[in-house]
């Protein structure tokens, strides 16, 4: 067959193969068939970006394994989880999971659906961090969050997020705190502050891939509440000349929480849902109420193996305090 015809026929065969992989048939022509077999194997070729991301994930885990080889994990929180996990409620959790996979290489760890197809609960992992989401229901309307994410390359993660439907809040740029950063809003209303630390690795020391950020009016008082109610430690508080908190970091057990004042025209108030693992949920619940939290549900054993309580704070944040009793992920 003349080469020109071979080029055309090969492309026709590739096109058919990509459209309907199961219906594709080996061509009769011997030369074309040999090329066709190579093309058929290429349909499954892995994404180079996935290979690279998984390698960084494996390396990060390996370095953590080296560092913590002698410390046993606590029994009151599930394996792989830190103390705080953001809990988002969105209208279309399936679509949001796809967005996070495409934009940030998220790995789906579980997705539980109700008989009507609604996603009741899903867990995804991004880098070393977990994120939970569901589609809510009565009393739990959509509740997007602000998330500070560290990636290997903020510019390309930003480009992928925009390609996956996010809109730009701030385009990529070098920030005074040593990060290259781009800020976007995803199609589900969540803010993502996508950063890459410029010196000594993509994530600044002491931080994780994902950190929840609370935007509130009166951040100062919210910081006081989180310290009183949950025993948080202040890591850093940066104020503007008028005393407003521009940025703050608190540590709750092994997880950082970031806070920043909501300002008209810059960032709206963004309260969040927070799944907070504590060694003793009853004690934590009592302490939170004493500090001024409102009870929504007292501690109770849930079918998913956690003793859980729900309290709200005065800034609209929902705190799901939990102590793991029996992990359904690891027990049959």
């Amino acid at each position, binding site marked *: 067959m003349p080469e020109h015809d*071979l*080029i*055309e026929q*090969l*492309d026709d065969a*590739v*096109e058919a193969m*990509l459209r309907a*992989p199961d219906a594709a048939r080996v061509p009769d022509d011997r030369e074309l068939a*040999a*090329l066709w077999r*190579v*093309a058929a*194997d*290429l*349909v*499954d*070729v*892995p*994404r*180079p970006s*996935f*290979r690279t991301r*998984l*390698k960084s*994930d*494996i*390396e990060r*885990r*390996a*370095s953590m*394994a*080296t560092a913590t*080889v002698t410390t046993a994990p606590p029994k009151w929180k599930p394996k792989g989880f830190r103390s705080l996990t953001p809990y988002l409620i969105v209208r279309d959790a399936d679509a949001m999971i*796809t967005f996070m*996979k495409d934009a940030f290489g998220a*790995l*789906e760890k*579980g*997705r*539980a*659906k109700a*008989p009507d197809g609604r996603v009741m609960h899903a867990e995804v992992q991004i880098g070393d961090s977990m994120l939970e989401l569901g589609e809510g229901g009565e009393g739990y309307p959509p509740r997007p969050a602000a998330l500070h994410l560290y990636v290997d390359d903020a510019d390309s993660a930003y480009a992928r997020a925009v390609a996956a439907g996010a809109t730009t809040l701030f385009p990529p740029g070098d920030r005074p705190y040593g990060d290259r950063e781009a800020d976007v809003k995803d199609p589900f209303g969540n803010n993502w502050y996508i950063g890459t630390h410029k010196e000594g690795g993509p994530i600044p020391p002491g931080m994780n891939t994902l950190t929840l950020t609370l935007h509130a009016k009166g951040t100062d008082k919210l910081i006081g509440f989180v310290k009183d109610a949950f025993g948080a430690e202040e890591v850093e508080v940066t104020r503007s000349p008028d005393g407003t908190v521009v940025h703050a970091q608190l540590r709750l057990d092994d997880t950082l929480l970031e806070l920043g004042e909501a300002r008209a025209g810059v960032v709206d108030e963004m309260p969040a849902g927070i799944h907070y693992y504590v060694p003793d949920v009853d004690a934590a619940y009592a302490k939170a109420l004493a500090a001024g939290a409102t009870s929504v549900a007292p501690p109770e054993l849930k079918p998913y193996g956690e003793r859980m309580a729900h309290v709200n704070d005065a800034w609209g944040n929902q705190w799901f305090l939990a102590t793991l009793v029996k992990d359904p992920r690891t027990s049959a």
Partner: protein
Amino acid sequence: MAHEEAADERLLVEAARTDPGRFAELYEAHFERIYAYVARRVRDRHAAEDITSEVFQQALANISRYEWRGVPFSAWLYRIAANAIADRWKAQERERGTPGPEPSVEPDFASVEQQARLFRMVGLLPQEQRRVIELRFVEQKSIREIARELGKSEGAVKQLQFRGIEGLRARMVESNA
């Protein structure tokens, strides 16, 4: 596996058992075959990525318990992958209440190995050919979209696709010889 290669692999596995930092080298050596195996059985890119991640995370977590018994390290990884596929299928079945599409049967390992070799060879293609192959097969873009993205004519893109596939075939024939 050649005798020398087996000895190298054994050393590497021993190193990774005591120093998890060395595990990345095992990942480099085995990524393509595990991905090829999983992708053949689940036929869905997202699922293939999730399961491949799980396989290497589990392997890393359990490497200290791995015992060298003279079988290739890949056999251990394949077994973790087969279990992960079965678990995922069972979980989906529970979630739906009805059996889902069953993962396809155990593929022939020689053809998995061959496909893994092909995946590695894509990275060795001349840059333009590789880019076209990735856009076409990974991102599943049309010739027209690729032409626009690369600022080339459609004919030129088809020719790069042809040269890429032809080049891969020639390398495969060589490596099988």
